[in-house]
């Protein structure tokens, strides 16, 4: 039973992160491979406050969102000047820079040693089995995010950001300052992903920089594309599938030596087949 809860919690954390990723990449065309870094920033901001300053969880929650939002806001200035391929590549570059910062800013992040024993939300200890409450909080958070994103995307704001996704120049000609829309989308998507990072940190209670290197950013993008760009339930489906799939592989008893490599090769294959046959993914409505 605990194992199921464990997988459900991991799936919800990644679903939340992929919702953030999809809000930027699927709905606004900002195909960014750096949301893994945002998860890292949220995780470290929250973990440092929780562990060393013993702040209550809600304060760390706000701090994680604020720190990631600020990072997204700062990054948006160089990034939003770019379009298409160069945008993707520079965002990929940022995930390397962020990884280096986590690794080398020893004073703040304790470097490669990582942070240990990060406390979880206080509510969790009401029941002896802490996982149930943890999952409840996460599901509530996902529902709120879904409601919020749905409301935004159905509103005229949603129409404008999808218009900027299609063609920035035409939307500017129609009288919208596309850069300010793209910036606010990028910041909000960063905040959502950062908060998912905080929950990951407080759930597995020990983090180190290798958790947030470029592999995570690539995984989040694959989840968004597999689930379907510009689709909220697609984001959740994509995240859950790519969390449950590797755990299932544990039961198949593949010879361990080729387990991780074959898992990675299947990711690569998924990507190619998707891009070839069904770029919109499972539930997507937008083809990059």
């Amino acid at each position, binding site marked *: *039973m*605990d*194992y*199921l809860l*464990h*997988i*459900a919690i*991991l*799936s919800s954390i990644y679903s939340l992160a992929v919702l953030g990723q999809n809000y930027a990449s699927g709905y606004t065309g900002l195909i960014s491979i750096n949301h893994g870094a945002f998860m890292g920033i949220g995780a470290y901001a929250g973990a440092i406050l929780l562990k060393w300053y013993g702040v209550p969880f809600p304060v760390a929650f706000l701090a994680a969102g604020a720190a990631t939002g600020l990072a997204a806001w700062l990054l948006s200035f160089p990034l939003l000047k770019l379009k298409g391929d160069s945008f993707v590549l520079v965002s990929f570059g940022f995930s390397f820079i962020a990884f*280096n910062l986590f*690794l*080398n800013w*020893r004073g703040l992040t304790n*470097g*490669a*040693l*990582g942070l*240990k*024993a990060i406390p979880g939300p206080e509510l969790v200890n009401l029941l002896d089995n*802490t996982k149930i409450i943890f999952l409840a909080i996460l599901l509530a958070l996902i529902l709120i995010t879904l409601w919020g994103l749905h409301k935004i995307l159905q509103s005229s704001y949603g129409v404008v950001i999808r218009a900027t996704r299609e063609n920035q120049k035409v939307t500017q000609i129609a009288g919208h300052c596309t850069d300010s829309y793209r910036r606010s989308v990028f910041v909000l998507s960063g905040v959502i992903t950062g908060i998912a990072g905080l929950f*990951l940190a407080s759930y*597995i*209670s*020990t*983090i*180190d920089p*290798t*958790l947030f290197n470029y592999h995570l950013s690539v995984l989040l993008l694959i989840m968004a594309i597999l689930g379907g760009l510009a689709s909220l*339930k697609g984001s*959740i*489906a994509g995240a*859950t*599938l790519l969390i*449950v799939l590797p*755990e*299932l592989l*544990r*039961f198949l008893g593949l010879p*361990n*030596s*080729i*387990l*991780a*490599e074959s898992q990675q090769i299947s990711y690569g294959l998924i990507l190619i087949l998707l891009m070839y046959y069904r770029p919109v993914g499972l539930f997507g409505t937008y083809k990059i």
Partner: protein
Amino acid sequence: MKKFLLPLLVLSLAACSGGEQGESDVIKIGYIGPMTGDAGSYGHDTKKGIDLYFQEHPTIQGKKVELIYEDAICNSQSAASAATKLVNIDQVKVIIGGQCSSETLGAAPVTEQHKVILISPVSSSPEVRDAGDYVFRMYPSDAIVGQTLAEEALKYERIAIITESTDYAEAYHDSVLHYLVQAQEVTPVVDEIVQPNTADFKTILQKVQNAKADVLLSIMQTPVKSGILVKQAAELGITAQIYGTDTLAGDDFEQHAKNAAKGVKMVIVAEDDSRAEVKEFKKVFGNFQAPVIFSLKSYDAAHVLADAIEAVGYDSDAIKQWLYDMPGREGLGGPIEFDEYGENNSQAGSVKVGVEDPATGRIVFELLREEP
């Protein structure tokens, strides 16, 4: 929403059917380690050490031993997943595991919560010390071994240190620096950090050259990094005496360093080659991908665990108490005695030096005979 519940349901069916084995006929022991990825060679050797023990002693209290291996790719999140699976699905009470310190630290919260013994053969980071009272480890903490390296370095005037920014190397570096600066008020002339993935040391070695250091400590995560460092140092004609740590030896090191490895020293928790059973173990084991000590320690971990279960049965609290009270004993990998933190610090590091083996012309590391 209902679409993604389906896979979860399927999973639970698979899970429940496997779980309900009674106390009866099998003793299950879990294993968590890096089967693949960069640290794959460590996982391979420690797994083989455990297999070797249970091939020789297949049963405990007359019951068959079942080993369940889980890959954690040297990553705390997968270690947590592996531990959760072992504890909840396979309902193991004992896990040998966490080779990389990040794995042990990732699995510890799960095993602590379910009161499952976690005994790690080779995690050496000082952070593991207070990871939990069900957590034990066979390998002395870097804080102890680091001291031996620092003492060796103090024989020289101008000390240079190059460290790779990984969990093992940085922890080791901190204990060496701590001992040098606090205990001996000696500050190194060069103290540089390098990135984990690239390995071009020439520019940093230039700093070592300019600082005219006469001893260079190479604290790296994998043998290959030290190998490249030694090669480039030789090319730049650096005369400083190079010291490595226990991760220096390994066939990767030899491939890169080749003849430049002559005279390179390293501080390692060494097995005593002279003992007959160690030689016998090496013969049976075959070729080593990682330092020999790693497989010896995992063999010892299996041995200690088997004795504990034999003595007090398959109950984690009883095993925990037995391990704490266990009198000191001599394992293949060296003396074993657990202090109140579950640490086995009864073994200091010893120094080995690279000497040219006349027969093969290859460089082999032997214990420095004359004690300093």
